[in-house]
Every structure is written in structure tokens, then in C-alpha cells.
């Protein structure tokens, strides 16, 4: 058969049907519902405001300093005395995130001393040029309603802009359970002071007793401590 020897596989596969599928909830999917996203999903960032509309970012560059991908560029400047942008002396004069580099590790959020930068659950933003990939402060900053701004190339779905902050402070920075359930963060425009997420202590106690009735989001903890030991 010569050069046609390789083709039986090809012809066989042609008639097997398509393996590639639209993921559930994608832009062209038949159903509008997306898969529910975990509360701690790391998506596109926002810069928050206080309830009075002041920017939370003080331009301290800790996020840029901690960023392993070096995708954040921040410059601080003196707050204009007659029109302060943020409380205190300094505000973020330039704030840029390059999403071609960002790996959504969330270290910037952990480093931020004012809870200014947090992450939404939006991860579908397919820009078509490099300029769009570099989000400037104007694009990252939440609007006057406290809601993230929607860029034309972003596919926002309801709920993706909620829970962008507050949840990560369920315990003290030092990890002491004594702080569990206590609000240790500032209010934010559009949402007020967010409630803490369910504590970990309760989950852990239930886990060791073999119960799986706790929330989905902390399953990893249960596995490593409770169940893992039980099986052996």
C-alpha cells in the first residue's frame, strides 16, 4: 500500500466523533450556568475602596515586592491635600498588573496591608493585544458602586464579583484560632463590612470525628488530618 499504510488510524478516527467539548458555562455553551466556583478561586484582581469612596491602596508596593512573576508595577505619590485619593500621606499613583505574567498566586493579596487588592472569580478574559493585557489602575479600581469594572473582553457572570475580600481573614495572620470569626478588616464600598467565613476549628473537630457534613471548601484539610489517618 506504500504511503497509505499510515492512514487506517486516520480514517478510523474521522468517524469516531468529536472529543473536544465546550466546558460548562463557556461563552458558546448551550447552558448559561457555569460550574459553581470555589469561594477562594483566584481570578482577576480589583482595587477596593473604603465605604466613603476613598481608595484603599496606599501605593506601598508590597504587592509588587512579593510578586513572584514581577507582574505588578506600583508607584506611590503624595496625596493631594485638597483632594486626597486615600487616607494618609500616600496613595497609589500608578498601579498596573500585567496579566500575561500574572500566575494568580494571591501573594499580593496576602501582602496587602490595607486589603486594597483582592481577587474576583473572573478568570475568562481573553484580550487580543498586549495593551489590553496590562490592566491600569483605572481598570482595576472598583467603580462608584464598589463593583468591579467590566472590560469588553471579560466574560462576567453573576456572583463572580462577590466575595472578593474578607473571606481570607478567617483567622489571625498568625493562624491563632482565638481570632476565628472576628472581623479584622475594614468595610468596603458597596458591601460594607463582610462577614467572616465559617471558622476552621469547627470543621477540624467534625473532620476528626469522621463527619463529612462540613462545607465543601475545606475538604482538603479534613483529608490530610482526619480521614487520612483513619484509613491506615
Amino acid at each position, binding site marked *: 500500500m506504500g504511503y497509505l499504510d499510515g492512514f487506517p488510524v486516520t480514517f478510523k478516527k474521522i468517524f469516531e466523533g468529536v472529543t473536544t467539548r465546550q466546558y460548562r458555562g463557556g461563552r458558546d455553551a448551550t447552558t448559561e450556568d457555569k460550574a459553581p466556583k470555589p469561594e477562594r478561586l483566584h481570578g482577576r484582581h480589583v482595587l477596593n475602596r473604603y465605604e466613603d469612596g476613598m481608595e484603599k491602596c496606599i*501605593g*506601598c*508596593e508590597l504587592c*509588587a*515586592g512579593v510578586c513572584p512573576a514581577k507582574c505588578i508595577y506600583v508607584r506611590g505619590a503624595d496625596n493631594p491635600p485638597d483632594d486626597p485619593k486615600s487616607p*494618609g*500621606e500616600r496613595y497609589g499613583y500608578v498601579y498596573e498588573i500585567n496579566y500575561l505574567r500574572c500566575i494568580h498566586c494571591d501573594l499580593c493579596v496576602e501582602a496587602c*496591608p490595607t486589603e486594597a487588592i483582592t481577587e474576583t472569580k473572573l478568570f475568562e478574559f481573553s484580550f487580543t493585544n498586549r495593551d489590553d493585557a496590562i490592566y491600569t489602575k483605572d481598570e482595576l479600581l472598583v467603580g462608584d458602586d464598589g463593583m468591579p469594572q467590566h472590560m469588553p473582553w471579560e466574560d462576567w457572570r453573576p456572583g463572580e464579583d462577590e466575595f472578593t475580600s474578607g473571606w481570607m481573614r478567617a483567622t489571625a495572620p498568625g493562624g491563632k484560632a482565638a481570632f476565628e470569626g472576628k472581623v479584622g478588616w475594614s468595610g468596603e464600598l458597596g458591601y460594607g463590612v463582610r462577614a467572616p467565613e465559617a471558622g476552621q476549628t469547627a470543621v477540624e473537630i467534625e473532620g476528626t470525628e469522621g463527619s463529612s457534613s462540613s462545607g465543601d471548601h475545606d475538604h482538603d484539610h479534613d483529608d490530610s488530618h482526619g480521614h487520612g489517618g483513619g484509613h491506615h
Partner: protein
Amino acid sequence: MTSTEAVTGVPFTLNGKDLEADSGELLIDAAERHGVHIPRFCYHPRMKPVGMCRMCLVEVDTGRGPALQPSCMLPVTPEMKVETESEATKEAQDGVLEFLLANHPLDCPVCDKGGECPLQDNAYAFGPGETRFVEEKRHYEKPIPISDLVHLDRERCILCDRCTRFASEVAGDSLIHFIDRGSQTQVNTFPDHPFASYFSGNTVQICPVGALTSAPYRFKARPWDLDAVESTAAVDTTGARVVLQSSQDKLVRVVGVDSDAVNWSWLSDKDRFSYGANNSTERITEPQIKSGGSRKPARWGDALKQAAGALRGPADRIAAIGGSRMSLESQYAWSKLLKGVLGTDHVNAQLGDGLPAALVLGVDRATIAEACEPGGVIVLVGPDPKEEVPTLFLRLRHALVEDGASLIELTPRATSLSNLADVRLAATPGTAGQVMAALADGRLDDEVGTVASAELAKAHELLTSGRPVTMVFGRANLAESARYVADAVGALRRLVPEARFLPALRRGNVHGALEMGLAPGFLPGGIRNRRTNFGRWPSTPEFEGKDTDNVLRGCLNGDFDTVILLGADPLGDFPDQKLAAEALASVTNIISVDTFLNESSALADVILPAAMWGEYDGTFCNMERRLSPMRAKVTAPGRCRPDWMIAAELSLAIGPDLGFVTLDELQAELSSSAGSFTDVSWDEVASADDGPVLSTDRNWDLEFGDPADLPTGPGYGFRLIVDRKMWDMGTTTQQATGLGGLAQNAAIRLAPADVQLMELVGHEVVAIDQGDFQVEVPFVSDPAVIPRTAWMPARLPGFDARQLVAAGRSITQVRLHLPDRDVTTGSSGSAEGSGANG
């Protein structure tokens, strides 16, 4: 320890290890030397310990049981047992930090010190981790600008006394102090007196918290995005060692480095903040050619071609002025181009405000350390060091205050060191040479000019006491001839043959320029012009060139076709403004190699844009002939290039190849051509802490002749003193962020006695009448001024004193009178006349 010889090796025990300290060494230093770091805030190795902060408490047992003692106040004694990590020490450190943090605000994220803060570091390393203090912290108004350059945030202050000690102990101007008591103690300035020190930036550098921050650096970057390289400050001839720090390819900060030989970690504010000019938007960034009266941007090739065309004429019709801004390597390249290729000797790095090259090159040079030798005698015949060589001022002051050195001051006005001088010889302009000659000849019984015989006797006794003598010499007065300084140097050499000399010239790398032959009559290495072949140079000049004075005068006579300005601005900088303006207006071609468009480069036919300090690699040669690296930290803007590359390209455009395309090749050729550079190891220059000093066996037999006679003027009365202030209308100062406004308005300074005599009390201005030139300027009554003299710094806003100076005169006299009235006060008789009218 009663014997005079130093007892080396005081045995003591540190954390159980038997070690040795030097005699008299403080425990904190001895521990550091042996690798044990004791935390501290107030202790600074260049200042006296005070034991303010208590952070360095360690457990010390001197035989009476262990007790906590501050290690910065405690010299090591024999058999001392020290524990730096015991429980008691740790508890003390915890307690001290908890107290310090009780009122220290937690605004580290917005604090410029955050990330490089000793308080942060020590709190992490030695602190308790948690605070028990829940009360409201003490609050003050957030940063208050205590000067144009420094902000003070009193909330952050931990009262370590470093800045206040620096101001009083090191700089000698105690403009900041502790005020109030107890928990309300704060550092502040006196009411309505800004912290207007020339050294204020140092307090920012040594502040262990963010209480003092610098205005130009405020919020420009955080420590973790800084990139740094070590270099040398080039704004004056002291050559202070610095670190250049940049962020995003922009210079954002300059920090002093502790060089034991030179600046002891201190910088003047000019050293520290001049970098701002690099970031100015008014830089020349591309070549420009003037055509039909207007300047147009041009390509390098076209600009070089036009410049080369202007240089094709006879060599003796070409002159070059300037070059002290450049690196040693660039100076060599230009020297080779001008003298070796073009063959002109009309080359001057100094603009009539310096000293003859032979005098600077040929006297036995002292190092700064030798000049400041404990117990030595310093003779100052020159400018106010604080204004023109400020880092040297700090060293001289330390020698006088702490090290028992004596000062003989022979200056036309009282300087910043006068209150520390043992003898002040108040010599009016034109008399310094005669005063020193009287000392040399032992004529001590008669007064010389305004100098009393008692003062002469005191000075003579000091000079002949056998103590090491160093003369710090420079141009104290631009309105009198440099001749008198040379006379004084010659006379001192007769009196004290082993005296050493430290030239206090002002202009950046001017010593490098003189070493590289940018002076008439010299080739690189201080070699006289006379030889016909030199190194690998195509030729050498066939005639002896003129100095800047005579070049400019020659321009008026049509002796020159082309003038090359190597970063020089004669219109703004030459002592005789009128001559400079007329001279440049009458030259056919002006080629300017510069960084900014100034009064002179604006006249140029071709402007070649040069890279600035911090944008090129090279070498600096300071007043001691110490070589230290100048390094590139940022990219030069636009199409600017290092000066030596411009010289090489220009030479190619003319024809000959200068023979080097890299800095290494240039340095190799420099070493092989210039005799005194044969032994220079360029690796050592680049890496040594202090840098090597060129060998100084050049004690030339200079011909001084007899000192000039005391000048006798036509009786105008007031001998004029014109000098320079640190802050003036100079291009760098005006272009750097925050410095432009520091230049004070011009005022003529008169002795209080003269103000009384002329009945000027109650007036604000005095009229200056030079015959063809009348002007009214504000005056100040100043006891620093000798009667019958008038002192006016040049290049200040309002009125430029250079308009009064005529180059070539031995001294300049001015006629002063009351405003709006034609009354001469040239003699006491006419002063009475003005009194009658008043």
C-alpha cells in the same frame, strides 16, 4: 593603661569565648569586630556615643556580678565577661523595643524607611513579637517640612539623638534640637528657623527610623526596587564616595559610603541631591545644528561633520574651554584630540576661577588625612571650605575640634572655620602674598595691610613650632588675581620647606583635567609641552597656549575662529561676565559638548549631547590625586554619549583614529602615555575601598618671584570680594529637584563699621557706581567682612556680582554710596559728606 604605648589586646570573654579587644575600644565595636552584632539605634561609629536608646544593653560582669550595661558607652576592660544572648539581655531588648514601639506609629507601608529600617529589623530580630500596649499612641502633625530638603515626622522619632548630634558635633550648625520634656520630648527646629544646613541630608541617612525623610526621594521608590552601584560624587573636588540608587532606570537616591580616607560617610546636600539634574526634562538629548539663526535637531553624523569642518583651520585659531565635568578617561580622549590631533594648546579646564596649572600640579600634595593630622597646623588661603568643598570642611572641622589641629586663616573674609581658627589673618584682597612673605621673612613688628603685628607673631610661632604644616589653598576671591595665592604658596614654602599643600579648587574633576593636560603648556601626566613626541600621539602642540582669560580676550581681537565648550558655560561661570559675552559673540564657530542648554551653549553652532554623571563609567581624580571610580547606573537619555566617545567620533570625522574603542583600551593607552599613571592598577581603582593616590613626587622648583606689591587703587575705597555659594544659579543646582529655590537673593555684604560710617542704617539698598555702570543692590551688615571691603557672592538671583569683575585686574574696587544720591564714600571725608546730607 598608664603607659603611653598602646596596649594592644585587652583580653575579655564574649559569650563564653576568650577574645581580645584593642585598648580603649568600645564593647559594641569589639563585639562587632568579632562577629557578634549587638543591636543599636543611637550609636554611630563616626559620632560620640551617648547611650540614649538603651538598645545595646548587654550583660557585663566585671567581677562584681553580671549587670546590664550599654555596650556603646563601655570601653572593654581586662577580664570583662560579656553575655549578649543571655536571658537577662533578651528581656532587656524585649523591653526596650516594646517601649520604643509604644508610641511608634505602624505606618511602615507608607514610610520611606520601611524595608531598610533598623527599628523594623531589630523589632523582628530582637523584639517581643506582640505588644501589650492597647492605648492610643501619641500623635503629632504628620510630616512637617523642616527645610526644603528634609521632612520631619515626630511620631516616628525614637529620640536617639543621632540627627541632633550630627548637627552640633559633625556639621557644627545645631539647627535641630530636642524640645520639651518627658513623654512630650520631640526633635524640632527653632521657631521660624528652617533646618537650612548644607549637610541636612546626612541626618536622613543616619536616622534609624523614618522620622527624617528626604523631600526629593519622598515616595519615589521602596528599598526593594532599588538597584545600586558604588561611585564617586563629582560636584566638588573632594570626591566623596557614594552609592547611586536607581529604580526603573531613573536615579532616585544617592547615599554616602564610609570611606576612611575621604568623606567618612558624610555628604554635602549638593553631593546628595544633584542627581536630580539627571532626571530633568530639559536635558539636551540629541545633537543640534544651528542654521539660519535657529537650532534644529540633527543626526550625529551631520553634527560631527559640521563640527569637524569648523576644526579644519589652523591649530592656533582653535581654543577649548572646560572639561572638568568629565571623567579622567574622557579628559584624556579630549586632550589627545585637541593637543595630539588638532595641535592646539589653547586648552583650559578652568574658567578663570582656578589657579595656574603649574602651581596645582607642582607642589607637594597632601592627602586629606595628612592635612587633618592630629596636632597639625592647617593654613587656609582659599575659599570658605563649607561653600566650595563642603565634605573637606567636615574633615577640617573634625581635625580642629577633636584632634587638636590648629588653624591659621589667611582669607579676605571670615569663613565658616573662623570661629575655630587659632589665628585669623584678616588680609584684604591683594595682600595675602605680602602677609605670608612677612611671615616668611620674619618681619613681624609692623602690620601688613589690615593684619596686626600681634597676629603675625602668633601665626609665625605656630608655623615654626615644628608641627606638621599643611596649606589648603584655592581662590578665595574671583575679583582679585590668582597671583596672590601663588605668592602665599611660595612664601610658605620658604618658611616651612616641608609643608604640604592641598588645593581646594571647586570644579568637579578639575584635578583629573589638569593631570590629563587640559591646561596650557601641559600634556597628560603633568608633562611639560616641550617634547615633540608623546606616547602614541600623532603630534604635540608647537606653541604655548593661552589661559581662559586671554583666550576670551583673543576672541575679541579675532584671534580665534572656533571655540569648543566642553561642558563649560563662560557666560554663566566666567568671573568677568561682560568679557565672556562679548568674546563668544565675536567667534565664528562655537561647538558645545554639554548636557543642558545654558547661556553659552545656546550660542553654539553645533551642540553635541553628552551623558551625565551616573550615565557613564570612568575615573575621578580628587584633590589628593586619589583615583576612584565613577560608574554608570542609568542609561543616558536620547542619543547622549559619553564624552570620550564624542572625542573619538569627532576625531574620526576629522580624519585620524584616536586608537581606542573601549574604555579598557583607553585606560591602557593612558597608563602607557602619562608617566605618573604607569603604576596605576585600574582594577585597584575599581575595587579598592579608598582608591589609590597617584604618586606625588612632583615637588617642582616653581619660580614664584617676589610677591606682588600691595595694590594701590585709585581710591574707590571698597575692595570687592566675589566668591561662590553652594547654592546659586548654576545649571545643576537649578535643574535638580528641590535645589533650585535654595539660592538666596544677591546682597552685598559690608562691615558693620562701614554701614555706620556710610549712614546706611535704615536703608535697604546701596548704590554701586563703577563709572559706566550703576546699580542698586540690597546690602547686609556682616561682621565677617573686613572694613573697607565688600563681599558679594557671584551668580545669585537678583544681581550677579560677576558684572562688577574685570578680568586681568589685580584687585577690583567698587564705589558705594547711599541710594538716590550722588555721594561718594571712598574716603572718610566724603563719608562725612553723606552724613551731612542724611
